[in-house]
């Protein structure tokens, strides 16, 4: 057995917060061998990023501190080294790339400057030698014209190119371990694929160990040899990738995998996890998943399950796999009874056309020169045709900047289109005045991506949901409105006592429910979902997708589902339009597009999506 490059033993990283000590990482152990990719996967707040920062010894001070455990780099503990010695390791033996390529590079220094800085720091090289190495690295990470790229400033590069520069910086000293913390989360899926295969190639070539931190299970499946699933500061299951995906053992892992949307789950509700992740200051005493676990037993909330090797290389921390525990009476299951029997949905799509968009164009002027004259236009949306049938879900997919959000807002006349026609139920609403538009406002609603900026923080939940009724249903009195608000809150799964509370008291998923309730309150026939589930963790996303799907089924509302996430599309949509550079490049039924795409771009897009077979 080869000696591991890095070995983490019982790592504990805590943070001092006003609410007490937050145990962000609480006893994590793993090791990574040379040339191996180990992935830590989990939902937000599980402690995966803090683990990464602890490994490279960059826990934010003074709030955070390593409370215990060891990090062995080729057998040497680095937790207790002096700051000077730690600096010799950072960027040299262990290096790291981050999620946000747009802000991770210093804007005021050239690319070349930022690369040679690392080289000169860790290796005895002259500036000229360092420059040669830097240009070579730029070439290796696949940047065009490395010689001139060397003198560029970061803002001139795209997000993908910047991430390549980050990789060049990280690998410039040929480190033993590369930590990649959500390296592609901020990038488009086609760029994501390129970046990940670049990391894979360079890893193979340099025999670097890679610690890949991500929330995306499919990405893990394609890119890691071994996986650790994290939940609430602990690794709950760890195994070689193939084994884990073939045979997930921990109830959390199982649930997580079942909540990923996809083609195979069409027509069925997604599996969800009840409740929310507890805050790091108050983890449950026993198993941290207790209270949310579908197969919870009586003793689970009292005793913490250790991480045991149940099969060869397959470690799991669950009492289910602990014979000693299962033999005792504490293993009586708790019947929660909350789980409803899975139902099947049948499409209720009618052939009647609800909304028709013809040749929609939205241009933004480019101004230049002495008097800021308009010299041209950015064609954000350039002749888009869409047809949405009554009761159907049309997905509009595309990468960032393709104009899909602009299209959605222009349909609702939140952005004034420059040309084209929007026909809703046979009436052209493109040039109606705001007054004439009012009856249509109730029919067409929108749900936003960011659950934090979509609710006015100064308004109570009741007022937020009521707002549309006040404007659009002036004939309703206070009591009728109140009843209506309560009924939609119940519909989206919020309890009535939340009426007088403010948005900040709710979790992301609950906020998204409030946003949905707000849209539903005015009884719309058509809702634009602008990346409505993209900011959510996969288990919460599953809940919201189930909710949207059931709304579609029950009330026959049509949806325009704007998203970049193809797995959501194949799960929920009836029809798909693929958008690229302001134009629709391909349209059709979901099955057809996903099985036999015709357009070149659609094919690239589909191939880039990581999948679990």
């Amino acid at each position, binding site marked *: 057995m080869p000696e591991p490059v890095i070995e983490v033993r019982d790592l504990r990283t805590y943070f001092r917060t006003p609410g007490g000590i937050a145990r962000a990482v609480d006893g994590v152990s793993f090791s990574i061998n040379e040339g191996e990719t180990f992935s830590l996967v989990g939902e937000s707040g599980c402690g995966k990023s803090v683990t990464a920062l602890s490994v490279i010894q960059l826990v934010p001070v003074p709030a955070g501190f390593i409370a215990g455990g060891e990090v062995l780099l080729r057998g040497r503990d680095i937790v207790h080294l002096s700051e000077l010695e730690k600096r010799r390791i950072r960027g040299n033996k262990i290096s790291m790339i981050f999620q946000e390529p747009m802000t991770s590079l210093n804007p005021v220094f050239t690319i070349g400057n930022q690369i040679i800085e690392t080289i000169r720091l860790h290796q005895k090289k002259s500036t000229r030698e360092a420059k040669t190495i830097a240009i070579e690295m730029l070439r290796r990470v696949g940047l065009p014209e490395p010689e001139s790229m060397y003198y560029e400033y970061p803002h001139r590069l795209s997000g993908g190119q910047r991430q390549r520069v980050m990789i060049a910086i990280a690998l410039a000293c040929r480190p033993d371990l590369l930590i990649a913390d959500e390296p592609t989360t901020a990038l488009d899926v086609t760029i994501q694929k390129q970046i990940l295969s670049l990391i894979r190639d360079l890893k193979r070539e340099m025999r670097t160990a890679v610690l890949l931190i991500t929330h995306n299970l499919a990405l893990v499946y394609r890119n890691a040899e071994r996986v650790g699933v994290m939940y609430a500061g602990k690794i709950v299951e760890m195994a070689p990738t193939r084994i884990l995906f073939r045979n997930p053992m921990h109830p959390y892992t199982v649930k997580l995998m079942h909540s990923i949307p996809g083609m195979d789950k069409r027509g069925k509700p997604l599996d969800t996890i009840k409740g929310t992740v507890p805050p790091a200051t108050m983890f449950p005493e026993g198993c941290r998943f207790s209270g949310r676990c579908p197969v919870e037993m009586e003793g689970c909330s009292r005793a913490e399950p250790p991480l045991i090797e149940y099969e060869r290389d397959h470690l799991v921390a669950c009492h289910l796999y602990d014979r000693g525990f299962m033999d005792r009476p504490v293993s009586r299951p708790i019947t929660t009874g909350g789980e409803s029997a899975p139902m099947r949905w049948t499409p209720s799509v009618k052939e009647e056309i609800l909304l028709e968009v013809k040749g929609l164009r939205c241009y933004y002027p480019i101004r230049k020169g002495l008097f800021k004259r308009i010299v041209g236009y950015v064609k954000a949306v350039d002749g888009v045709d869409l047809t949405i049938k009554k009761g159907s879900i049309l997905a509009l997919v595309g990468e960032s900047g393709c104009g899909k959000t602009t299209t959605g807002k222009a349909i609702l006349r939140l952005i004034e289109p420059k040309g084209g026609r929007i026909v809703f139920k046979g009436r052209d609403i493109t040039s109606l005045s705001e007054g004439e538009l009012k009856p249509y406002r109730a029919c067409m609603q929108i749900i936003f991506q960011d659950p934090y900026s979509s609710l*006015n923080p100064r308004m109570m939940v009741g007022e937020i949901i009521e707002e549309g009724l006040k*404007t659009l249903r002036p004939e309703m009195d206070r009591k009728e409105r109140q009843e209506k608000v309560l009924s939609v809150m119940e519909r989206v799964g919020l309890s009535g006592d939340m009426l007088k509370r403010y948005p*900040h008291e709710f979790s992301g998923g609950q906020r998204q429910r409030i946003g949905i309730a707000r849209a539903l309150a005015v009884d719309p026939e058509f809702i634009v979902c602008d990346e409505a589930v993209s900011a959510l963790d996969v288990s919460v996303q599953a809940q919201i997708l189930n909710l949207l799907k059931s709304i579609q089924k029950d009330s026959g509302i049509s949806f325009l589902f704007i998203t970049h996430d193809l797995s959501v599309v194949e799960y929920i949509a009836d029809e798909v339009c693929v958008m690229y550079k302001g134009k629709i490049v391909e349209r059709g039924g979901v099955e057809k597009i996903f099985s036999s795409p015709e357009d070149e771009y659609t094919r690239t897009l589909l191939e880039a999506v990581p999948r679990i077979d």
Partner: protein
Amino acid sequence: MPVVLSTDLIVYFLVLLIIYCAFAVRKEGYLSIAWHQIRTNKLAMVSMFILFLYIGVALLDSIRWRDVVLDSEGRVMHKEDGSVIYSPQALSLLDRLLHDMRVNTEKTFSAPLATHLYVKETIELPDGTRIRDYPPLKYPGTHLLGTDKVGNDVLFSAIKGIRTGIVIGTGTTIIIIPFAILFGVLAGFYGGVVDDIIQYIYTTLSSIPSVLLIVAFMLIFGERGYQGGLITEEDIFFKIFVPNDRLFWLCVIMGITSWTDLCRLLRGETLKLREMDYVQAARAFGVSSLRIIYRHIVPNVMHIVLITFVLQFSGLVLAEAILSYIGIGVGPEMGSWGNMINTARLELSREPIVWWNLFAAFIFMFGLVLPANIFGDAVRDALDPRLRVR
């Protein structure tokens, strides 16, 4: 007969505002969260207590009335037309509470708690001989901070400066807030020509050196108003109201010069808020622009207004002293720390020096500005987490 100065209204308004805030923090909402955070900060709480003390004194000093004039036999005097004659002196509640301190004046300088004057005089002894010595005080040992050149109690002058400080510190911002919100929000929300015009106005205003603008304004408006001291019949409107108060004009012009910063901040914030999803959601409901401004924009910029209010306070108090020092601040008869410093400065060159005047002004000003700074920081940290720096 009560008398109300326009600046008294500012103090009343400030007190009402504090009471309103006290009720608002009881409700659930961002104010109550902020309040809970401020409450954990002991230093801020002490500062708040001190500020309340100052404001309390200012309030006492803003409730004033004129007494009837009595003749030598103690009867109320009347004018020829039969109306009662009131004294031109509108003494405040504070003046009346501190009656002894106000009227027990000495001849000239005396050191804190001294029993004798600070300067030698020729005294005629009972036996007829004349010596040069320090004459005894009329009220020995009662002047905690001594007396000034004309024998007034220094502590009393310093206390009288409190109201001026509080009025300048709060009144200035209170007067400009409505305009700043109106113009800032309109410029940010509507953009285009409205924005151009408003930006033009505030760029023009801020391009004028603020001291000079204040000077010009005060030379023109301030000269004609009530300067402090006695009230003449021309000053009074509707029997009790004195609108043309020099201090009020000072608040107005200092408001105009500090207006642009708040306006610019609000414009920037509105530009951001305009694009927020919840504003888009409201527009998707067909909610009118005015209602969006009222429901979604204004409540979400109020924290900036509140932060500006508390952060500007100390700067304004300091600025008032400087302006009064140059001679364009409050009137010479209005109690003010700037005036005190102005007169005390020359006394430093005396031998031995007279320091207590300056000392009193320093302590009282510092005692107001330091807690204001500390409390202001606490409020900013609590209301705007983005500005917080660990």
